């Protein structure tokens, strides 16, 4: 069920190629992650829209294979 952080990063980058992705395995169980994603694609979008872009990149795994992914998104400064 669990996903590796490399898998998560690869999925995000395939949808948002410019993304700078930092992933932390919070519990060491491959199931609870925190990710920071910085991408130009987020500029001018609401937080909800930014997170929706990341969830779309994860292709339905969020809430399924991926139980917990705390998400912080922003456009490059």
């Amino acid at each position, binding site marked *: 069920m669990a996903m590796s952080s490399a898998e998560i990063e690869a999925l995000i980058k395939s949808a948002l190629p410019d993304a700078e992705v930092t992933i932390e395995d919070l519990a060491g169980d491959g199931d609870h992650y925190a990710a920071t994603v910085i991408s130009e694609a987020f500029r001018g979008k609401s*937080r*909800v829209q930014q*997170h*929706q872009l990341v*969830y779309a990149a994860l292709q*339905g795994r*969020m*809430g*399924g294979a991926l139980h*917990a992914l*705390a*998400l*912080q998104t922003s456009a490059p400064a």
Partner: protein
Amino acid sequence: MADNPVFARIEGEIAANPVVLYMKGTPVFPQCGFSARVVQILSHVGVPFRGVNVLEDMELREGIKAFSNWPTIPQLYVKGEFVGGCDIIMEMFQAGELQQLLQEKGIATAAEA
């Protein structure tokens, strides 16, 4: 998408209640850490809200995800508008934006900051 019968129920609920939290468990007894955190924030801000337990209703549990295009619970609605899940509510609260949003929407909070 519009033919999902749950959507009408959700629309009715978020139209009838200014602040609605779709959550796992109840405000008094949350059954998930993320839901509990949002309940805590709303209580701290002092805003009355209606908690809807999605664990009691499988149709609603899946329906709300499709309705909001959001894969996880909890989900907060203010004046019929989807505001976000746990991370966003947390971020907004810490930045003072949640309180500001409630004020802009004309929702009274007990703890005026």
